[in-house]
């Protein structure tokens, strides 16, 4: 691993550790409103100050990190599994089947996914606990985010299909299902891992975008997107620079995820 990748990996581990220790480190419950001190400056009681309702910003940041960093990989896993199944089937079977799957992928890209999320939200029963609604939000993102990886996996599967060992297996009388599961999929494993790893920061960013638009994690739960909502007031940011900490943390984590990947793109 290059020095850059090592640094990125160390930073990620540190943040994961912070997240796990959140309950011990946190100064106050994330939902508790200190109504005498809304928008307060950093102090010993509130190391990162308080938000507009007087809730401790550091607690909300630590809990938000937990929500985003635990659920984004789950969504990434779901989307990678779907993309892997569809992509390898398309590339392996080829011909009309491949065209249909790729067309369906393009089709789902054109659908108004934002509207779909709105709809799912509106259809959920109202007495669903907030944590469950957060999990459902990330699940929906996973179900809607698989399109980007399908083409890449399909191209790779096509390559494997034309390889010699597969020809040998097929000529030995191997059934297609077995070919797919035992020969094609294992060879694409590194690609699956790479796609999974790339998807995690994408879902973190998607959640941030959705929460800024008001469709993400519900109050009073904290998430990075939620914490970024008060960002329209840039002049106030100049006076209160500590409010940038959630954005800085988001950018650092996403960058680290991208840099850690041992990509073929970086040459020595």
């Amino acid at each position, binding site marked *: 691993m290059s020095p850059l990748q090592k640094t990125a990996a160390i930073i990620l581990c540190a943040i994961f550790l912070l997240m796990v220790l959140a309950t011990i480190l946190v100064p106050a419950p994330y*939902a*508790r*409103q200190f*109504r005498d001190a*809304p928008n307060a400056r950093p102090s010993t009681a509130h190391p990162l100050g308080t938000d*507009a*309702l*007087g809730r401790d910003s550091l607690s909300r940041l630590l809990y938000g990190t937990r929500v985003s960093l635990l659920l984004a990989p789950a969504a990434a896993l779901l989307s990678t599994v779907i993309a892997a199944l569809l992509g390898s089937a398309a590339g392996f079977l080829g011909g009309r089947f491949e065209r249909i799957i790729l067309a369906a992928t393009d089709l789902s890209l054109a659908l108004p996914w934002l509207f779909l999320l*709105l709809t799912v*939200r*509106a259809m959920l029963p*109202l*007495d669903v*606990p*907030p944590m469950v*609604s957060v999990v459902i939000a990330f699940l929906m993102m996973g179900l809607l985010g698989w399109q980007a990886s399908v083409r890449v996996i399909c191209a790779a599967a096509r390559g494997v299909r034309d390889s010699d060992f597969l020809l040998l297996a097929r000529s030995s009388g191997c059934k297609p299902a077995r070919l797919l599961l035992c020969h094609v999929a294992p060879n694409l494993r590194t690609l699956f891992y790479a796609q999974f790893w790339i998807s995690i920061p994408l879902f973190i960013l998607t959640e941030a975008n959705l929460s800024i638009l*008001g*469709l993400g994690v*519900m*109050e*009073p739960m904290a998430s990075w997107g939620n914490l970024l909502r008060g960002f*329209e*007031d840039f*002049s*106030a940011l100049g006076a209160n620079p500590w409010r940038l900490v959630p954005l800085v943390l988001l950018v650092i984590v996403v960058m680290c995820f991208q840099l850690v990947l041992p990509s073929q793109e970086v040459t020595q």
Partner: protein
Amino acid sequence: MIRRVCLVLVLTLVSCCPSFVSAESASQSGGELHFCLHGEPKTFNPLLVEDGQSETVRYLTGGVLIRLNRQTQALEPALATSWKATPDGRTITFHLRTGLHFSDGTPFTSEDVAYTVKALMDPQLHSPTGDSFRSGDGQVSVQTPTADTITVTFPAPVAGLERLFDQVAILSAHSPKKEMAVLGPFYVADYSPGSYLLLRRNPNYWKKDKEGKPLPYLDSIRLDIQRNHDIEILRFRRGEIHIINSLDADLFDRLQKESPAAAHDAGPSLDSEFVWFNQVPTAAFPDYKKAWFRSTEFRKALSLAINRDDLARIVYAGHAQPAYGPISPANHFWFNSALPAPKYDSAAALRLLTQAGFRLEGETLRDASGNRVEFTLVTSTGNKPREQMVTMIQQDLSQIGIKVNMVTLDFPSLIERITRTFDYEACLLGFTNTDLDPNSQMNVWLSSAENHQWNPKQSKPATAWEAEIDRLMQSQASSTSDKKRKADWDRVQQIVFEQQPFIYLINRDAMSAISPTVIGSAPSVLDPHAFWNADVLRLGPDPSLGAQK
């Protein structure tokens, strides 16, 4: 060679780079007032107006018989020099100004007023303005004995008849331009959908100032279509627009820090925010919850447990006041001053709940059957003050052991739940009131009406107090004595205070931003706050620049 390529690319990139547009200079020539609409006006026909943007256009272009002065809250003659209503409230006679013309030169006579009234009262026309006059079934008869007198007779008495004519802009009966020929201070000169609307001064406007100079002073008004409130305030700061008619509390504070002369807080407005519980018998939640929501003590206890001062202080940065009831204290005549101020007392709330059979076990409140008291409060997405209020109410009620879940829904889904499926438990919404006379709220208080939000369209009143409110509504609608109507409405406010079907939270202030270059502005609590006197507004040199135009 690569370096040459790089050079070429750099040059191309630099030339493509956006030249970041510099702000326009703050001085304006030609007296064009500039401000923003938050959406497209849906119609230019003044009879069909139902959204805020069309209403702004109607206010600036329409000529009305009687104008409500937004500052003094008194009625003033406009196109009618005088008027007289009969004691039974069914007939009104207007004496009109003579020698006036529409913006395109067509002469103005009583025929035009007759045409407008008949079109408004056409049963096929569905509009809020027309419906306000519809107090009973039957035809409206209009007589025009002379060119400058007109008598209108309604089938049933209309409460507050004269004030309603402030909404009726007179259309021309004969002009080829139809609704685009107007009698107001401005007329629509240019409309680019999605972009802007240009209004030019009407040379035939009837009003003159004290020295006899024809009004309006402004040459034109340009209304840009701008949905994003942050971009709007950015443009105001840069001097591109002169007015922001309605500001949110946090934007107001931002502006006040930078230019205190531009930020105006006219005091509490007529708008209110409130919470109510679903009392529809067929709602989809368990019966024990229905019992809670129907219990008066439950509702009163929750009202006592909510800290309204904190809501006003934190969510609205002090630019709001705790609300007493359906009528805001800003409505001097109709507000019941005998009402006690809203109190915050968790201990008293707990006592009331204990009386009603609830008991506090540790941190949780349980009802008589042992069920945990927990409900979901829905509100609309994208409205930050409402979301913040629900979050604060969550904490307030958790102190008496009640767990509140918040769900935000987009408006259409929310409206479907509260008006069609009734699949919700409690809701927090606000009411934007444009009318001083509470008669326009009748459909909220009649138990058989659509907007009786907690239990709409009842075949007969479900409770005794709702029956009493029904009776009071009928009484005030058919009465013409303002004193008697006020007594009825005072009693309604008293009942609402005792029963808390709506738990009123706050009345927000009327905040607007007016650039110091605008001369003659006098922000009011009634809409339109900043430009109700658009015909006497002028643009002058920017005092901060200290330069002459």
